[in-house]
C-alpha cells in the first residue's frame, strides 16, 4: 500500500538521523532492553509524576483554568528538581477530557478559558524527566461521586488486565490497537486515544540525553522529539498501523469517553521475553486516594 510504504520510507530515513556520527553519541540506546536499573529509574519518574497529579488534583477548585492547573503541575515538578519534560503538563476538564470538538494539534493545549465546574471529570497528564528517565502518566478523576465515571473506570481497569494478556500473547501491535478499539466501542464509548497524534494507544519512552538542559518546546520538548524522531518515529508510536517489536518499554494510554467526559490511564508497560508486566503495581487509579472519585 502506498501509505504503508511511505511510512516505512520516512521511518527508515528518520532513524538514520540517530545513527549519524556525532548525534549517535548523545542518543541513549533504545529502551527495548530494559535493565533493572533502568526500570527503577523510570519508576521514580512515574511516581513523581503521579504524586504531582494527586497533589495538584487535591488542591484543584472550581474556577481553576486548565492552563493554570497545568502550569501548577509544572511548578510542582520543577520544585522537585525536574529540569526538563518529555512533555509539559496537560489538564482537561469536562467534555474536553474526551477531546470533544478537537480538530487541530493546538486544541489539545490546556485552555486559558475553560474553568473547572463542580462535578466535572478531570484528566491530568504529565511527563517529567527525572535523572534522564522520562515518565508519562495520565490520571482521570472527579472531586465528587460520579456514577458514569465509576462505570467507565471499571471498564478501564478491566482493560488494564486485558492489555497485559494482549501484550503477552501472539497478536501483533496493530491488532492489539484494533482489539482495544473494538472493546471500547462495544461498551458504547468513543475511542479518544485515536485522536492523539498518530492515533497513539502508546509510545516508547527512553532515557533522554542532556537531561539537565532545560526543556524547550510546547507541549513536547526537543528531548521528546529527539527521542522519537531519531528512532524513526513510526515504530515508536503504537498507532492503528504500527508494525514493530512488542519487546521493551512502552507508555500505554487507553483513553475513551463520551460527549460529557473522558477517562484514561497512562502507565509504563514492560514486555520482556514475551511476558508483559506493568512497571507500577499501585498507581492512584488502582486505589483512588481519599477525596478522589
Amino acid at each position: 500500500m502506498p501509505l504503508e510504504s511511505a511510512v516505512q520510507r520516512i521511518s527508515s530515513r528518520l532513524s538514520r538521523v540517530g545513527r549519524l556520527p556525532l548525534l549517535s553519541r548523545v542518543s541513549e540506546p533504545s529502551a527495548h532492553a530494559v535493565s533493572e536499573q533502568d526500570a527503577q529509574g523510570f519508576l521514580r519518574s512515574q511516581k513523581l509524576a503521579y504524586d504531582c497529579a494527586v497533589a495538584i488534583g487535591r488542591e484543584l477548585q472550581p474556577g481553576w483554568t486548565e492552563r493554570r492547573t497545568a502550569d501548577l503541575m509544572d511548578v510542582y515538578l520543577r520544585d522537585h528538581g525536574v529540569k526538563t519534560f518529555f512533555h509539559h503538563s496537560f489538564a482537561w476538564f469536562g467534555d474536553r477530557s474526551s477531546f470533544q470538538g478537537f480538530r487541530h494539534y493546538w486544541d489539545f493545549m490546556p485552555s486559558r478559558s475553560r474553568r473547572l465546574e463542580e462535578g466535572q471529570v478531570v484528566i491530568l497528564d504529565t511527563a517529567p524527566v527525572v535523572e534522564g528517565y522520562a515518565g508519562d502518566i495520565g490520571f482521570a478523576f472527579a472531586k465528587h461521586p460520579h456514577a458514569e465515571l465509576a462505570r467507565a473506570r471499571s471498564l478501564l481497569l478491566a482493560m488494564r488486565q486485558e492489555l497485559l494478556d494482549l501484550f503477552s500473547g501472539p497478536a501483533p501491535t496493530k491488532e492489539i490497537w484494533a482489539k482495544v478499539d473494538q472493546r471500547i466501542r462495544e461498551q458504547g464509548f468513543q475511542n479518544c486515544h485515536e485522536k492523539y497524534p498518530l492515533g497513539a494507544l502508546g509510545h516508547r519512552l527512553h532515557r533522554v540525553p542532556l537531561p539537565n538542559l532545560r526543556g524547550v518546546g510546547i507541549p513536547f520538548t526537543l528531548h521528546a522529539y529527539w527521542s522519537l524522531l531519531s528512532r524513526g518515529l513510526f515504530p515508536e508510536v503504537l498507532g492503528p498501523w504500527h508494525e514493530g517489536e512488542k519487546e521493551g518499554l512502552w507508555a500505554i494510554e487507553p483513553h475513551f469517553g463520551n460527549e460529557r467526559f473522558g477517562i484514561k490511564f497512562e502507565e509504563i508497560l514492560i514486555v520482556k521475553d514475551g511476558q508483559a508486566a506493568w512497571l507500577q503495581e499501585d498507581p492512584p487509579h488502582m486505589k483512588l486516594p481519599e477525596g478522589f472519585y
Partner: protein
Amino acid sequence: MSLRQKNATLRGLSTGWWSSSEPAPGKPILFFIHGFPDDAESWRPQFELFEQAGYPVIAPYLRGCGPSEPASDRVRYSRDAVVLDHLEILREECRTWGEREVVVIGHDIGGMHAWTLARMLGPRLKGLVLVNAPDVGQLLRRVTRPKQVAKSSYIPVFLVRGIADRWFGPEADRSVRFARKKGGLTQPLPLPGDVSSLLEHYRAAFRDFRRVLFQKPDLVRAPVLAIAGKDDAFLEVPTQQEFKGYADKVELRVLEGNHWLQIEQKDQVHRLIQRFVEGASHAS
C-alpha cells in the same frame, strides 16, 4: 492563648508558621502573609487578637525567612511555588481543624502572595484583605504615576543580585531599621535577622512580568478590603479604578498613616478586618 509555632518539611523544604491550637468551630481561617523586610511577627499585633477571639489563624514565614529555609533553586520563590507551599500549610492545619473557609490577609509583598492564594481557593475563599499591598500588576501599571515611580525606586536595586543582599544579609538590622523608619514604624517590632532571601520574591515576581502584564488576572469574586496609608512612603494611595479586572467587590479604606498600618493603627485596622470578616461570614 494557644498560639504555637510549627515547623514541617513541606515539599522538601523546612517551613515555619504560627497557628492556633484551639480554634472555635465554624469560624473561617485567617491566613496572614507578611511583607518585606519583615517576618510573621509583623502580623502578631493582629493575629493574637483574632486568635483570642477564637479564630483559627495561620501566619507563615515566607520562603527564605526565619524557620522557612531558603531555597537553592530560585524557582521556589515564584508566586506559584509559594502558593503551593501555602496550600500545603492549609492542608496540614485542616487535618486537625476540618475544612474551613479562608480569609487571606497580606501586607506589602505579602499582598501579591495573598492575591495569588485568593485566586486558588475557589469557593473556600471568604474574603481578601490587603494592607499597604497592591498586586504586582497593579503596581506595574502605576508606571504612569511619577510619585509611585519615585517611591518604588528601591525596587530596581533589589532586583540586582549582590547589592541589596549585602544590606539585608547577616548585618540586616541597620537596613531593616532604616526601612521601617522610612515607612513610619514607631512601635516596637522584633528584628527579623537576615532577610536577604526575601529579595528573591521581588526577583521572582519580576521574572514573571510577561504573565503579569499580558495575561488577564483571574477575577477574585469574594469581597476584598484594601487598606492604604495616606502617607505611605512606598505606595501611592490606590484608586477604586485600579481594582477593575482584579476583583468584583472592593472596599477601599484610606487611613491616616504610613506603611505599617497593621501595627501603627493596630486598633483601627483590627476593627476594619473584624467587621469585614464578620460581614463576609454573614454574607455566606
